[in-house]
């Protein structure tokens, strides 16, 4: 969505459900999909007399996040009560953090646009704070009444708030994707958007280019897919611009996106906004986080995607695009790294091309090509997750190493990949032997073959001599076909040139 007259301003608030064993203030499980209210303890249903006890693991998640975004992990933060009545909020207050959040500041780099040179942008974070989720109100199947399921009540959330730094829907979605990748990468959130583990609220406003003040914003609640986010913000921007251009004023409001009709609708205006009467929760002590604790967690942090991407570019001389694809998720990066490790341990034989200054760089390029090419294509073709790939990194490295040592051609390698993908055989070598796919590299054998091909294709030879380069390719193709692809294509090419005097 773009306009030459109107500048879009977007800030996002994201609720990431933390991957703890139990709830943030009770010992109930947070597993998804249990029967209603079986994961609701005395604390979760707010019986008289019960008290909250902070889950240490939730704090560890918040610290990891603070470190990952380069924010400040607050040495002291405070839990506050946000008071409002709703049937799925058992205490009639939500325990959250208000004045002193656990993480302050930090930023996230996003890439906007595709191709090898996407533009980079820094999105600044205002804060991230810990809080508990509410339960669920179920309005269907209760014959006009509302059902309450408190399994979700007390689920730990990290609410991550950005500055109003984004200037387009594309940037907002890019940020949401980068944040999603990061929280999954550092293991604090499972990222499952359909189960509500990662959901965003978008604050959207527009202003004429050049105007310093922000326009009046409307907040789109609960966007739980990147596609809906794209649609909702695009719709909202168009709606706001149309309203202003038709002489109406935007009033501050909370809106919901209806994906069925692709529109946003106001839920409540600022006038109906609650006064939440925040105050420090007297049942919980201030959360004091020592430098030592932060250091301890810091030492256990995995390499972060940005750093890994930069390393891939310098250490392996991969393109920025390849590096970002390979670091798009920790699973992908781990898969690539494991494949590369396995390949290097097998040893790279000959490096033919001067393109590759070292065996490592050659091996990395081969692995990158196969992970991003054949593997990714098969994953998306069969709609399966990387974790469920029939090919382990070890199996893929087995294929790639046979390309590297010229046992097989690329074409044969793809055939082997498909076979392994279908569950035939345990590794590349068994399939190569079983099917007799070993590449013919014996110069004598190839020479005899080339002679046969030249004799059988006199027409192509004449065409080539007449200057048709295409005819040469046809001859290579014939030679390869005659060996069922097992001939070394480079050798075939070289020999043909020699024989044709070309």
């Amino acid at each position, binding site marked *: 969505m773009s306009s030459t007259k109107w500048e879009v301003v977007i800030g996002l608030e994201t609720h990431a459900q933390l991957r703890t064993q139990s709830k943030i203030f009770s010992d109930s499980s947070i597993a998804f999909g249990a029967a209603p209210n079986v994961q609701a303890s*005395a604390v979760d*249903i*707010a*019986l*008289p*007399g*019960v*008290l*909250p*006890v*902070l889950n240490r693991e939730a704090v560890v998640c918040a610290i990891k996040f603070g470190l990952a975004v380069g924010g400040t992990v607050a040495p002291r933060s405070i839990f506050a*009560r946000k*008071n409002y*009545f709703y*049937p799925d909020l*058992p*205490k*009639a*207050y939500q325990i959250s953090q208000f004045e002193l959040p656990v993480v302050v500041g930090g930023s996230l780099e996003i890439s906007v646009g595709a191709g090898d040179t996407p533009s980079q942008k820094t999105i600044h974070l205002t804060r991230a704070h810990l809080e508990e989720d509410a339960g669920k109100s179920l309005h269907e199947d209760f014959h006009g009444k509302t059902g*309450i399921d408190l399994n979700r009540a007390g689920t730990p959330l990290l609410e991550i708030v950005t500055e109003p730094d984004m200037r387009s829907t594309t940037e907002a979605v890019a940020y949401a994707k980068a944040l999603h990748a990061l929280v999954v990468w550092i293991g604090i959130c499972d990222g499952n958007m359909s189960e509500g583990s990662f959901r965003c609220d978008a604050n959207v406003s527009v202003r004429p280019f050049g105007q310093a003040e922000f326009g009046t914003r409307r907040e789109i609640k609960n966007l739980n897919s990147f596609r809906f986010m794209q649609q909702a913000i695009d719709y909202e921007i168009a709606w706001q611009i149309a309203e202003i251009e038709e002489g109406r004023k935007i009033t501050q409001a909370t809106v919901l996106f209806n994906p069925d009709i692709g529109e946003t609708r106001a839920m409540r205006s600022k006038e109906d906004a609650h*006064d939440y*009467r*925040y*105050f420090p929760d*007297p*049942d*919980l*002590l201030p959360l004091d986080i020592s430098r030592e604790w932060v250091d301890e967690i810091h030492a256990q942090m995995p390499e972060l995607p940005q750093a890994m991407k930069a390393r891939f570019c310098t250490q392996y001389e991969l393109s920025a695009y390849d590096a970002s694809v390979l670091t798009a998720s920790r699973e992908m990066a781990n898969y690539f790294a494991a494949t590369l490790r396995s390949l290097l341990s097998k040893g790279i034989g000959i490096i033919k091309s001067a393109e590759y200054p070292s065996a490592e760089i050659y091996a990395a390029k081969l692995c990158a090509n196969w992970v991003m090419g054949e593997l990714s294509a098969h994953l998306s073709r069969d709609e399966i997750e990387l974790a469920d790939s029939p090919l382990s990194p070890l199996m893929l490295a087995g294929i790639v190493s046979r390309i590297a040592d010229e046992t097989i051609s690329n074409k044969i390698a793809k055939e082997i990949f498909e076979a392994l993908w279908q569950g035939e055989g345990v590794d590349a070598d068994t399939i190569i032997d079983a099917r007799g796919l070993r590449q013919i590299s014996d110069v004598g054998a190839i020479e005899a073959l080339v002679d046969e091909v030249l004799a059988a294709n006199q027409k192509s030879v004449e065409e080539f001599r007449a200057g048709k380069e295409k005819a040469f390719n046809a001859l290579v193709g014939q030679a390869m076909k005659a060996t069922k692809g097992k001939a070394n294509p480079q050798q075939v090419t070289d020999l043909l040139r020699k024989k044709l005097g070309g």
Partner: protein
Amino acid sequence: MTQMHTASLAELSAALNAKKFSAVELAQFYLSRTEKLDGDLNAFISTDMDKTLAMARAADERIARGEAGALTGIPVAYKDLFCVDGWRATCGSRMLENFVAPYDAHVVELLNAAGMVTLGKLNMDEFAMGSSNENSYFGAVKNPWDLSRVPGGSSGGTAAVVAARLAPVALGTDTGGSIRQPAAFCGLTGLKPTYGRVSRYGVVAYASSLDQASPMAKSAEDCALLLTAMTGFDARDSTSLQRAAEDFSASLNQPLKGLRIGLPREYFADGMDADVRLAIESALAELRALGATTVEVNLPNAALSLPAYYVIAPAEASSNLSRFDGVRYGYRAPEYKDLNDMYAKTRAQGFGEEVKRRILMGTYVLSHGYYDAFYLKAQKIRRLIANDFRAAFEHCDVIVSPTTPTVAFPLGDKTDDPVQMYLADIYTISSNLAGLPAMSIPCGLGQHNMPVGLQIIGPWFAESTMLNVAHQYQQTSDWHTRLPEMAR
């Protein structure tokens, strides 16, 4: 023969272990006394003979096995905001009239484990809000010394049953004086521990940062025994203190020679009745005779305690009581139009006047635009008050004052004037704000032959010192052994 109703806990325990009587007989004795006398007092909300006798039988078996502790077989009663598994916990409110607790409070777990026998649940000001026990949905509790007078509040039932000897000890809570003021009005020994000593888990909250479960007893010695059993770290309460177990009975017999008693100038200024002043002065003379010295100390922010309390406590209460919304348990209005109407009618009908007044006050002081001027300022005052005490304890070991400015007042006397009612807690509130331990012991009889209470405030964790002072005083005085007419 040990008199069951006047014997100390140690004497009762000795008699139980010597098989002079059984725990069942002891429980039956108190149940029948309650049957006879509680019609006048209205101190119990729930009794359950089957449950009580089952516990007593279990205690007898334990005694027979030779596994009895100091409290095994001793009956106890709980203010009706303690959750006791299988018993109602009404909090003196229509809102929870039929709420049966499905779990035990931490302190109840401890006393059950000690082998104490639950006699029942006690009347109280609704949700612990009040100073006269007239704010109960279950009706006012009467003072055993004079049935036309209040027993104090909010632990009025707790005080009434111990004063009338319907229970040898009982538990209450103290948020602004709710154990000490009724102890004073009923001639008893009651102690509010240092904040965090006793877990609040399972004790229905009024004001979380001030509430402490507290023992009520006939003497300091009994109080010490019960307190020892009540205290201990509980991981389910984040404000519970991690401290080594302490035996509060261990140092009751230290001589008071050299003890420095601080007398706050501000508490001895105008405002206390002459009969109260007289009783306090003679108690101080007695303490000096025991070797203590007195020194004047200053608590310059004392006058701010009451206003600060009536910001902080209602603020916390307004939030704590929000869970009583008619959705999951408790009272729900029988008829309503929609969700908001259900909330409004449920809470309008389920809560009494004083509770609604404090919810309104608390909601107001937390509201946008008022938070800084009221709540935040009150929290700052709270810090100043704690600092005052810290400075005062540089010059003294304990602070002594009257517990209340007057003796127990007649029922209905202050019900139309909330501020007059609030002033009944003028001397007790500051120790809650500072988190300090404080107790009240009987030190005389004033007007209308009503008991007068002496307050002893200690530094944080000084319960042993305070109990030592109280016990030594009770060794040379007999005010704590006086019985109201109806209890003899």
